[in-house]
């Protein structure tokens, strides 16, 4: 495999697969579902088991995939799965177990329209599920929202790094637009998979059957029948989540310095909104973009600061209104916070967003 940067024209899904191989991923477990099947297809085509030794398994189901992830992550390996909305719904039990047992791993959700089996077209309607844990119990998953094919590639290594730093599942929350579109990608230089010695050093908690002579057996579980011990464990998790909130917020701004109004949008909605902002500028409206890159931890403080300077927020998300509640909490009622989205697999057009911007401007004046 090439060690230098490689420039390619790739679909977002293909970029995820190639980035995984190049960042030393040890194993992928997944089950095909539109619009992300190219992740598994690309891995099958590239046969990384012949080059880096990365394992690729088409599991019998999404439930099997996430439990393979639990097992692989428990041994300290960099393991990942990918699916689309209904498949991610099936994985929630496993993700909750991983969070409870503090097992790192990467889950990629290329969202499609819901609820239920829904459509195969793009959507962002799994925002609440992703940012509120999604399964049972008090827990959070680190959620990264790529807005380009380049970020699909870049966030694989970042997600693994964060997952292992905090011993927590991390998710790339993408959608059918970013997964299916092709753009120019610069793939990072390849790095080797970690050796057993490196894993033993970095993951002293890992249960891999190699340390029995030196220490007591490792136990990786989310189960604890003593509630007082369980409460302690929960407090430990909450302290960890607080640390993540303090240290790992990521976002990007565009033209917010002299903006009267700001669109808050993530992923593909942010890209479409950027075009709407170009059109609005031509029509004389001063609009900026705030793009959360981490959806959890959410850039609450930054949005709060912005709410002191601008006249209104328009939250553009391809759902019926989910992130808008986080933005409203941050804005604390200071300014109007409107929401615009399309549902069920329909993606909003830049023109529709421009219309909403002018409505917001009218409202803020009144």
């Amino acid at each position, binding site marked *: 495999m090439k060690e230098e940067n490689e*420039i390619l*024209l790739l679909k977002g899904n293909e970029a995820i697969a190639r980035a995984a191989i190049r960042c030393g991923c040890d194993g992928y477990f997944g089950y095909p579902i*539109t*619009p992300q099947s190219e992740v598994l297809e690309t891995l099958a085509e590239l046969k990384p088991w012949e080059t880096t030794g990365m394992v690729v398994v088409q599991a019998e189901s999404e439930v099997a995939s996430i439990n393979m992830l639990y097992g692989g992550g428990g041994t300290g390996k960099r393991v990942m799965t990918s699916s689309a909305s209904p498949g991610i719904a099936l994985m929630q039990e496993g993700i909750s177990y991983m969070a409870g047992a503090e097992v790192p791993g990467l889950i990629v959700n290329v969202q499609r329209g819901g609820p239920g089996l829904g459509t*195969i*077209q793009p959507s962002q309607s799994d925002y609440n599920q992703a940012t509120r844990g999604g399964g049972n119990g008090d827990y959070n998953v680190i959620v990264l929202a790529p807005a380009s094919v380049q970020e699909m590639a870049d966030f694989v290594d970042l997600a693994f790094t964060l997952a292992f730093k905090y011993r927590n599942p991390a998710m790339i929350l993408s959608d*059918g*637009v970013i997964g*299916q*579109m*092709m*753009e*120019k990608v610069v793939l990072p230089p390849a790095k080797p998979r970690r050796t057993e010695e490196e894993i033993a050093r970095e993951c002293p908690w890992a249960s891999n059957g190699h340390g029995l002579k030196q220490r007591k057996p490792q136990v990786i579980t989310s189960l604890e029948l003593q509630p007082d011990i369980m409460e302690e464990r929960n407090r430990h998790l909450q302290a960890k989540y607080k640390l993540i909130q303090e240290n790992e917020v990521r976002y990007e701004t565009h033209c917010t310095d002299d903006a009267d109004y700001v669109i808050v949008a993530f992923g*593909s909605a942010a*890209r*479409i*909104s*950027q*075009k*709407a*902002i*170009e059109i609005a500028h031509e029509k004389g409206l001063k609009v900026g973009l705030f793009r959360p890159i981490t959806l959890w931890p959410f850039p609450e403080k930054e949005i709060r600061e912005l709410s002191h300077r601008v006249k209104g927020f328009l939250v553009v998300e391809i759902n019926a209104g989910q992130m808008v509640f986080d933005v409203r909490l941050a804005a604390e009622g200071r300014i109007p916070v409107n929401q615009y989205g399309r549902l069920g697999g329909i*993606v909003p*057009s*830049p*023109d*529709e967003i421009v219309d909403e911007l002018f409505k917001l401007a009218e409202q803020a004046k009144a």
Partner: protein
Amino acid sequence: MKQEIIISGFGGQGVLSLGKILAYAALMEGKEVTWMPAYGPEQRGGTANVTVIISSEPISSPILSAYDSAILLNQPSLDKFEPKVKPQGDLIFDSFGILDKPTRPDIHSWQIPAMETAAELGMMKCFNMFILGGYLKLHPIVDIESVIKALRKTLPERHHHLLPTNEQAILKGMEIIQPASL
């Protein structure tokens, strides 16, 4: 430089690969590109479309409300996208199977008898390259050499003997495109 293009037709006409080859050629010339397909059941015979954007600057939305150029290869595509061509933009269509021709006086409409020519020359598999040639005649945003390089990259090696035929189809497409009479 920026071209915002919609390419739409029946699944199987080579709509998506036409867009991909154009995007690849632009990428190799160091331009920014996005290629956004409608990825539903279209692949199995309905209508397929892809939005291709080629620019010297970073590209914002891969999804658009209006297009500089529309390449429309069947009636449903023409009905759907003619209203979305920007004023003074270009609409390219193959009259084969088109009963209701474009009517807007504020855009430039171009006709290319690609299906007919491809059938005459026995080059049906290169149908989409005739179209690409026609488009490049109007908007020479990439060199033919880059297109051939892109074809070499995207076609499986067993088809590489067809590269000269594809080049021929592109050159022929440049000849046969003409303004459509409204």
